[in-house]
Structure formats: C-alpha cells, structure tokens
C-alpha cells in the first residue's frame, strides 16, 4: 500500500466510525423518546390513581401536571391522532397536515437561516474592521436579542407587505416570517463569526501580509476557513433559532400554512381535541431535531478534513 492508500483507508475507517456513531445517537434518541412516552403514561396513571382515590394531593396541578384526559390525553390517543383527518372536508390525515406544515415552516426557517447567516457574517466582517466598531456595536447586538419577538413580528409582517414592492418577485407573507427568523439567527452567527474570524493564527495573518495579500484575499483564504468550526457551532444554534423564529413569527404575524399556525389553531380549540395539539408539538420537535441534524451532518462532512473535533452545541 502506498501512503496515499493508507491515508485513504484510515479516512474510510473514520467515516464508517462516524456513521455508526451517528446511528447510535439516533437509536439513543429513539430509546429516550420511548422512555419519555412510558414516563408520561406512567405519571398519568399514577396521577389518575391519586385522583381516583380522591386524596386531593395538592402537588398535582400546582407543580406537577394535571392528569385528566383533557390536560394529558392518553399516549395511545396522541399516536392514533396522527392517522385521523383533522378536517372534515378531507381525508388527509393529521400526519400529512403536520408534514406539509413542517415543510412550510422549514422553508421559512431555511430562508431565515440563509438571511441570518448572510447578515450575521456581514456584521462579523464589519466588526472585524476595527475594534472601535466592535465595541460600539456589540452591546446593541446583545440588546437586540432581548427584544421580545412578539412585539416586532407584526411590525415586520406589515413592513414586509408594504415595503417590498420594488422586488422583482412577489413578496409573500412567509418571507416576512423568514425575516422574523432572521432576527434570531443572525446573532449567534455574528458573535461566533467575529470570534472565528479573529481565531486565525496571528502567524498565519502575518504570512498573508508577507505575501502582500489583499484584505479580501486574507478574508477568503484564511479568516473565513479558520472560522468554519465556530460558524458551525453557531449554525446549530441558528437552525433551532430559525425554527423558533418561524413558529413565533407565524403565530404572531398571522401567517397561514405552517406549524406555528397549526399549533395556534389546535391550541385555540384545544378542548375539542387535545391530542391534536400534542401531535403537532411532537411534529415541531422532530422538525427542530432534523434541522439541527442536517447542519451537524454538513458540519461533519466539511470538518472531517480537519484535526479538531467539532465544537459541541
């Protein structure tokens, strides 16, 4: 075997190891979900037995969830609900509704994610220009994240539908929701981005100067690649944030078609069918995990060339 072949074999081995590791994580997650379902059922049975005994245990309903069928529908009902059509005028099962809504929300979130990455990176690159700008702007970036989304969501929706007429394509509401998601996604990208760009080895920076490289060349050839592990750590947070942003944006922006709206709809007629809300929330949870999983998969492919372990979280 030549050295190249050895190296290739080693890389293949590592890749296989990573795949089994990823597979194991999925199994752990599934096992955990089953345990969670069991815990739910067990707790419900326990709580109901106490209810039945009329002991009036005060903890339940105060710091522990209430256990009647209206507040905690039986697990079997929740699972069965996926197959039932939620609307009378169609046979489409709830699972399909959730899937379609998930895709809709995913589209909003994906666009928001992309906007957020572009904006965040842009800000990071701007902050890199001088420490003065960095010091001047960073506190406000932090402050921006404490602004409650519910307050700005409707404003962005209105602004989106009135101020985007100049665009060559039609601005639809879900794009405004993406902007709301952007509001949450740009921040981690900007913060980790600046840290990542600054993480370039000073010796390497000096090397680029010795080549009389332009600022742009240094950015593209050195600082951006150096920031990749930091960016992926941010992307994972941003992926979750994008979905949270999309859901909150849909809810408070009055945009139809996505998970947020579905949750609101089912929440607003909760008493007439509690399992529907549970099923939808489970759908949202799965969507979040899938989104982060996708980022992690991309990260694995991109960073496998490098020495470092991917940064967690």
């Amino acid at each position, binding site marked *: 075997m*030549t*050295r*190249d072949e050895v*190296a290739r074999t080693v890389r293949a081995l590592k890749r296989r190891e990573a795949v089994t590791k990823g597979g194991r994580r999925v199994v752990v997650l599934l096992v955990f979900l089953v345990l969670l379902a069991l815990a739910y059922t067990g707790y419900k049975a326990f709580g109901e037995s106490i209810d039945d005994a009329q002991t009036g245990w005060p903890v339940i309903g105060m710091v522990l969830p209430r256990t009647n069928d209206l507040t905690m529908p039986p697990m079997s009902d929740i699972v069965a609900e996926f197959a039932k059509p939620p609307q009378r005028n169609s046979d489409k099962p709830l699972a399909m509704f959730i899937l379609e809504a998930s895709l809709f929300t995913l589209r909003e979130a994906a666009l928001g994610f992309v906007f957020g990455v572009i904006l965040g990176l842009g800000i990071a690159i701007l902050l890199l220009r001088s420490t003065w700008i960095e010091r001047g702007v960073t506190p406000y970036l932090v402050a921006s994240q404490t602004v409650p989304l519910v307050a700005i969501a409707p404003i962005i929706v209105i602004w989106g539908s009135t101020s985007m007429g100049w665009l060559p394509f039609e601005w639809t509401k879900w794009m405004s929701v993406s902007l709301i998601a952007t509001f949450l996604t740009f921040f981690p990208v900007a913060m980790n981005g600046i840290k990542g760009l600054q993480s370039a*080895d000073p*010796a*390497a920076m*000096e*090397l*680029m*100067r*010795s*080549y*009389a*490289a332009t600022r742009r*060349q240094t950015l593209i*050839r*050195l600082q951006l*690649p150096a920031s*990749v592990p930091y960016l992926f750590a941010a992307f994972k947070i941003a992926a979750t944030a994008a979905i949270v942003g999309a859901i909150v944006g849909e809810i408070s922006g009055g945009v139809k078609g996505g998970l947020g709206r579905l949750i609101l709809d089912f929440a607003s007629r909760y008493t007439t069918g509690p399992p529907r809300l549970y099923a939808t929330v489970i759908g949202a949870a799965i969507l979040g995990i899938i989104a982060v999983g996708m980022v992690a998969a991309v990260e694995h492919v991109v960073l496998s*060339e*490098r*020495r470092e372990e991917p940064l967690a979280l």
Partner: protein
Amino acid sequence: MTDAPRCAVAITDVSKVFNPGRANEVHALDAISLRIDEGAFVSLIGPSGCGKSTLLRLIGALTHPTGGGVRVNDKSADQARLDRDYGMAFQTSGLFKWRSVTENIELPLQLMGWSKAARRERAVEMLELVKLEEFANHYPREMSGGMRQRVAIARALSFRPSLLLMDEPFGALDEMSREHMQTELLEIWKKTGKTIVFVTHSIPEAVFLSQRVIVMSPRPGRITADINVDLGERVFETREAPAFFEKITEVREALRSEEGSA
C-alpha cells in the same frame, strides 16, 4: 560559499519602540545596523524578548521601524514585500489545516493569480525539493512536525523569492528531528542559493547552519556580537568536530557576557 558582493538586506541604525509614550512602552530594538550579503546564511540568536522576531519582521516590512531604514534588494522593505522578494517560515509551521499539502504550497501562487496548471507544476517541483512527493494529497494533521516544517519551507520557496526569512522554524521539533531538518535545510540552501536569515534559540543550531551568527542582547535589543563561522562543508561529523564545539563556546560566551539573570 557566496562571493556575490550584492547586498540583500541593509539595515541602518534601526530602532523600534512599541506603544511609544504609553505606559506599556517597550524599546524592542535600538541602533541596529546590519548588512547581509546575497546568498548568505545568517543566524540571529539571543535570549527571549531581545527582539529577534521584531528584527525579522522589520526586514519583511511586517512592522515598521521607529527610526532608521531597512532596504531589501536595494528597495524599500515595503516595496520588497509588495514585489514578493522574500518567503517566510515560522516556529509553528502555519500550514492551513483545511488545505492539503499541495494546496498549502500553492497558496502564495494562488494569491499571485497563477493558473491552476502552473501552480500544480511548481508544487510538484517543490515537493521534490523537500522530499515529500508521496504526501502531496495529505492533510497537515496526518504529518509529523518535521514534515510540516518541510512543507512550510516548500511554501516559502514556491514563488522563488530571493530571500528566506525563518523565525525559529525548528523550535518545536525534538532534537533528533531538528538535526535532521538542519541538514535538509542546508541542502536546499546549497541547491537554491537563497539568502537566508534564520532566528534561533539554539547555539549549536546557529553554529551548524550559518556562516554568520548575530548575537543580540535584550532591553533594548542590540547587536552585541557578529561571529563568523567557517566550518567548511557541513557533514555529519561537523557536529563532533572540536572546531564546532569551539564556535559553540564562543557564541555562548558572547551571549553570557550580555546576560544577567533569566
């Protein structure tokens, strides 16, 4: 070995003060004058903080003198940098871990806008020079420290600068690989005829490698001795020759005369 009378580096009465006028002001260099002939192999040695790296960075126009002048190849140091007259290598190889060995060597060429084919051709040539043909497609993490330094040297030489500036390139290697790398470097120097300015902490290394050892003292950094080393062709036995040990002693004495406590 070199008879070229041309002057590769001319430093005249250079001083360097960091953070002048502030509380953390540092007089890094003072009244440094130095001429380095083309094709020479010159080492800078001195205790930590004496300004060796600063002096090297002044030659490379990576920082600018507070007083005095630096000329490289009869141009201003800045012009020389823009003309890519020199290549650089550091203690940490500074290879980009996201680039394969070949891509690392091609980096300066890419920045200069070379075509892909031309770059590849030159990289192959350089890999031969540093004897790493087999590792063309490896990534830095798959290589030992010595191999990485060889790649860094190949990268510094890839665009054929006339001057090579090296800042403790072998500082992170263990003594055995270090001796090996020293031999390799001398071979490359002989083959290419570059001017080399070499910063080191190690007296045997300075003596073994160079024709001239510049000894520096700290606070502020000054040149305290300029020792000619004439050991002829370096071979394995050079390291065991009495003349070699004598030169080591001479450099040590020069260093010691300036040293107080660590």
